[in-house]
């Protein structure tokens, strides 16, 4: 396969392509903005752009996925992004270039470069790339932008150029955040998404409270992510580096001198440092303790022998004890700092995701936003939060993720599954129902993710895409509905099957995907996420109730979804008496059909044959898992021992019902 890639593409083609995929939407935005008020021109132009972009992205991601599924990496030390612009190495493989997977594009330096740490300057870098965690999300963003652009009929009637331009700006921001491997770059793109969203909700929203909703969305998520910024800065500043530390290889020397401070902003480097730093701390503490114990034993021995120079030995023992205490204190301080940073970091991401009870910005924003924008919010933007959890929070604070992840945030996720499902059932507006259903699904995602084993993590990674496709398609259908009747209120609509057969087909299919019927994508990931909760170590901590809550989501999602289907599709035809001006009539048009076909096809294909996608994620999930496993051994050594020595089936602390 290598030779195929090498022959087809010169090294660096993918890097250029990635840059194009990231920044072309900005150019589109500028061009579309020029059309101003001309609706048709803006619509055609942006449709063309989005389709072009989608084709490019499909090509890019397909090649990248084949690459990362077929290449085995020697170690799991860090994420292995490929197609990194500015990668200095001139390796054999086209995508990576070198095996270093890092960039040399500095945005600005912070402090002086340390000559002892070559090629890792303390600089904020333009470090973007594709790996298993983000490449599918980038494709998802491109698909959803295409769908949003195609389905913005009613929403973009006024000031069409501005609307489409903001949508493209949003795409660049989201893609940038997905692709970033530098914490500051990530944060900048992460916050950049707020601006287009703010204008899209506030300017083109459908409800009376759109400005209020836009402001609430903006402030609420910003409030959360400011904590994350604090956390990021803290992580960067408390992250030490090793004077001989390369990006790969084990750090063995426990007496290795360390340099604190902003040494790197690269997520890869930070993960590597965090992982090894903790090992070194533990190693030092263990060594010092062993030495102290040895000294104490010596003293005891001498005392029994009534040796004359007892006091000298006593002094040595005291020194060793002091050293041991110092080393332990250093380790404990590290843990304490990591704890605070964990909660600060996670704040922004759980708000963005959102996790119950930090979700209250969501109903207002989702309801007031133009439906295609709601689609983007739910399908793509929410994934920023979960990707942040996966890429930053868990690998950078693994001990806290092991200790508090499942008991606190997993429990919140479980509560969210049930609670949001009940809320969803209570809604009269399909859009709000879908909004709460998103909360419910993402609760499951977070719950499964914090199981922190390969099933849960892979399930979470894929569920981001799957939920994006199914929730996106749901909102896309609602946009179609809104274009026809100007409302998505279930009390005003009913029996639409008899009028829109194709629409009904798609709605049923997507609803099936949403409830996780086998053969659709969500089934795979729900099984993985629930399965993750059944791995033994997770049980040592919180018990089976989380798994039961997760499984109850299977029923509850069906409950509200099928009630919605009954109200909207079944029964006698019921439509609002007053239809909006310029409303479409009839079944799906060709453009809508194409737009809906993409995510629907995605749902089915990922449900029937997900293995290639799963394979492309394997390495990067293994990276997280490695970091987490080390943390797990630290947090609960006995459990780790048990798991190591005994076959899982005979695991003793099983069910006691």
């Amino acid at each position, binding site marked *: 396969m290598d030779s195929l890639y090498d022959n087809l593409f010169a090294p660096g083609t993918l890097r250029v392509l990635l840059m194009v995929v990231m920044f072309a939407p900005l150019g589109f935005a500028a061009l579309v903005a020029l059309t101003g008020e001309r609706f048709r021109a803006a619509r055609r132009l942006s449709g063309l752009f989005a389709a072009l972009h989608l084709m490019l992205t499909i090509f890019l991601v397909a090649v990248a996925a084949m690459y990362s599924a077929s290449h085995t990496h020697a170690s799991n030390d860090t994420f292995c992004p490929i197609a990194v612009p500015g990668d200095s190495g001139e390796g054999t493989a086209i995508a990576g270039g070198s095996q270093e997977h890092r960039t040399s594009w500095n945005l600005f330096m912070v402090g002086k470069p340390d000559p002892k740490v070559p090629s890792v300057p303390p600089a904020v870098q333009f470090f973007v790339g594709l790996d298993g965690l983000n490449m599918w999300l980038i494709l998802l963003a491109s698909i959803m932008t295409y769908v949003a652009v195609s389905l913005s009929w009613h929403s973009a009637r006024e000031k069409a150029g501005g609307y489409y331009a903001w949508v493209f700006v949003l795409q660049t921001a989201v893609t940038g955040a997905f692709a970033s491997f530098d914490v500051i770059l990530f944060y900048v793109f992460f916050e950049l998404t707020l601006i287009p969203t703010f204008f899209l909700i506030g300017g083109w929203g459908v409800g009376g409270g759109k400005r209020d909703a836009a402001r609430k969305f903006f402030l609420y998520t910003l409030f959360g992510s400011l904590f994350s910024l604090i956390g990021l800065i803290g992580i960067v500043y408390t992250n030490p580096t090793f004077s001989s530390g390369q990006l790969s290889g084990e750090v063995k020397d426990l007496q290795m001198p360390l340099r604190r401070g902003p040494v790197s902003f690269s997520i890869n480097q930070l993960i590597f440092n965090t992982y090894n730093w903790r090992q070194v701390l533990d190693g030092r503490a263990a060594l010092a303790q062993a030495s102290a114990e040895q000294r104490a034993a010596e003293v005891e021995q001498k005392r029994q022998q009534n040796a004359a120079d007892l006091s000298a030995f006593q002094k040595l023992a005291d020194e060793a004890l002091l050293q041991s205490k110092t080393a332990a204190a250093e380790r404990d301080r590290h843990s304490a700092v990591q704890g605070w940073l964990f909660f600060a970091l996670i704040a922004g991401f759980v708000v963005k995701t959102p996790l119950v009870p930090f979700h*209250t910005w969501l109903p207002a924003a989702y309801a007031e936003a133009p439906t295609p924008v709601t689609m983007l919010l739910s399908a793509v933007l929410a994934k920023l939060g979960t990707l942040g959890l996966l890429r930053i929070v868990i690998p950078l604070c693994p001990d806290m993720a092991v200790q508090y992840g499942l008991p606190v945030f997993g429990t919140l996720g479980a509560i969210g599954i049930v609670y949001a499902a009940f809320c969803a059932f209570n809604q009269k507006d399909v859009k709000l129902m879908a909004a709460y259903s998103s909360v419910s699904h993402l609760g499951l995602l977070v719950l499964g993710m914090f199981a922190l084993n390969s*099933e849960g993590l892979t399930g979470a990674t894929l569920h981001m895409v799957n939920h994006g496709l199914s929730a996106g398609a749901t909102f896309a259908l609602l946009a179609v509905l809104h274009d026809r009747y100007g409302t998505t209120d279930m009390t005003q609509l009913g029996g639409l099957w008899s009028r829109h057969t194709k629409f009904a087909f798609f709605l049923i299919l997507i609803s099936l995907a949403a409830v996780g019927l086998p053969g659709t994508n969500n089934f*795979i990931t729900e099984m*993985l996420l629930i399965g993750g909760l059944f791995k033994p170590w997770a049980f040592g901590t919180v018990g089976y109730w989380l798994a039961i809550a997760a499984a109850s989501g299977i*029923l509850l999602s069906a409950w509200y979804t099928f009630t919605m289907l009954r109200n909207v599709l079944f029964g006698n035809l019921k439509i609002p008496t007053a239809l909006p001006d310029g409303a479409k009539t009839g079944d799906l048009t060709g453009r809508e059909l194409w737009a809906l076909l993409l995510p629907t096809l995605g749902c089915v294909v990922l449900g029937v044959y997900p293995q290639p996608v799963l394979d492309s994620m394997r390495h990067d999930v293994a990276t997280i898992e490695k970091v987490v496993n080390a943390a797990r051994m630290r947090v609960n050594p006995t459990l780790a021992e048990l798991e190591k020595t005994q076959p899982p089936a005979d695991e003793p602390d099983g069910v006691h019902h």
Partner: protein
Amino acid sequence: MPDPLSPIGLSLIAVTLPLLGSVLSALCGAARLPRLAHMPAVLTFAAAGVISGYVLFTLAGGKDPLSYKAELGTWFTVGDMKVPVAFHLDSLSLIMLSTVTFIATFIAVFSASYMKGDDGFARYFAVMGLFVFAMCLLVTSNNFFLLVAGWEGVGLCSYLLVGYYYTKPSAAAAARKAFLVTRLGDVGMILGIFWLWKFGGYHSNIDQLVDHITHQPPAADQITLCCLLLFCGAVGKSAQLPLYVWLPDAMEGPTPVSALIHAATMVTAGVYLLARTAPLFALSPTAQIVVTIVGGLTALLAAFIALAQYDLKRVLAYSTVSQLGFMFMGLGCGGAIAPNIAVTAAIFHLFTHAFFKALLFLGSGSVMHAMGNVIDMRKFGGLRKLMPVTHATFLIGSLALAGFPLLSGFWSKDQILTALHDAGTGRSVFHGYYYTVYLVACLTALMTAFYTFRAYFLTFWGEERVPHEAHGHAHESSPAMTIPLVILAVGALAIGAVVDPLTHWFGHFLERSPVLHHADEAFHKTTNMSVGHHAFNVTVAAISSVLSLAGIGIAAMLYRKGGPEKVPTVLKPVFALSQNKAYVDEVYGATVVLPAETAASGSGQFDGFLDALARLISFIPRFLGAVLRPLQNGLVQFYALGMVLGLAVFLTVVVLRSGR
């Protein structure tokens, strides 16, 4: 990849064919050729039936264990969760596969005539094809997750077909109810599968998992928990006691659908599941007795409700629930006598029941077709002259259902009763329960005979009455509908006797399945009892015959003249209770649906409260603003004063600090 001409290869072709038929039917609909949509379905079902029948007959007669396995690649694999697309073929799945495709073929033929001219003709056959595919997948998959795929697939098709008349609100409600209630059971099943996966060394293939668990059994309470959770799924799908309520409502679908899905095939998936996992159940006698008791209670309650229904299809629906209860009673005996006897009895009843219940439903469909879609027995009667073929076949079906001696229903029911009797008189710790259930089963058998013939007499005897909805066109159905009836009637008449009591072919064939072998071993290991063989018990057969004849006799006595029926005053409350379905729906409405909906609206309100909490934070800057606003009073001197005071404070601090 297996050899396509090997038994497993042929079976997989048979499994896939209905999917092809479904796609072709859908394409017919899309290509504006809806009138041809039945052709792909009928042809592929028939081909699948012929292939599976061929495989069955080529494999029949041997003595060796019968088990073929195939893996067609990976569905998904992550970490310890490895889900291959794995199939297996043993006697159990082969019998199921043949039954399903065989019955489906005739029902498809019947439907082609019955549904002619309907708007959703192509949709009907596409979904039906999908259903048969999912059912075949369910019975042949060797992997729990693949089984769940088939399981949910049949549920989906059931949903789509019950809600086939989508403009009918009652159909929409029934479809949703069917889906949700079965899914409630599925939650339990999925949890059970995961627990099994955990205890079973992270195998998800059924055979490997069963091997692992039978060789390294986990604690008894753990295995009981897993079995009961699996049974939850079966309870939902097979309409057992807490969750049976969806099945009578599911009669809103077209009648052939009721015949295929809600009588012959899908509802028996639960029985199949328990048979398939019999080795696990064999490890847990507690789970077995629970199965038996649930089955007994269901059979009794459903039979009781069926006594006073006026809707012909509902009578049949409750009788289906009741007969499924019989099957579970039989399955549960595996904890007290050998699992192979129990499973054989249950599967045998499943097999015969598929014939006569499909026949009865199709017969009622024929009646309904003639009566202009009226199914209320009070509105018609005395149809035996008008619809002779239907009458004859319906009579055969009723006799079979009632357990009339020597008909197929008699033999299979007799096996279950014998099993229960043996269990009740055996050495099991639960033999008291088993014996009670045996008595219940006898009572139910009596009630079954009675209500079946009540329906038969009310429909076909008495003076001839035709509802005005029939527009005077009431007539015997076309041959496309009557030929399937006749064929199924032959099956109902003779197949029971042919396959088992005469030849013992069925039992021997089923015994070749490694599942039963494993189950017997596990049973032996768990209970330390020897594994017996099925023996014809003359006493039980006699009692069963007497009860059946008594039921038929009472019904003939009361309803020979046809309706309207006269109820003795003493029995009126009982009659009303039965007619109102024992108020189970109302009880559920008050205890499950209402609390859930209240919880939903409560959650909605609580969400508002949460939102208010979040908004509370936004009041902090507002409050500060309100406090500080009066300072901006527009007087320049006031501002200057503030400046000077601030400066004074600042200077004080500076001076005092530097003074130190």
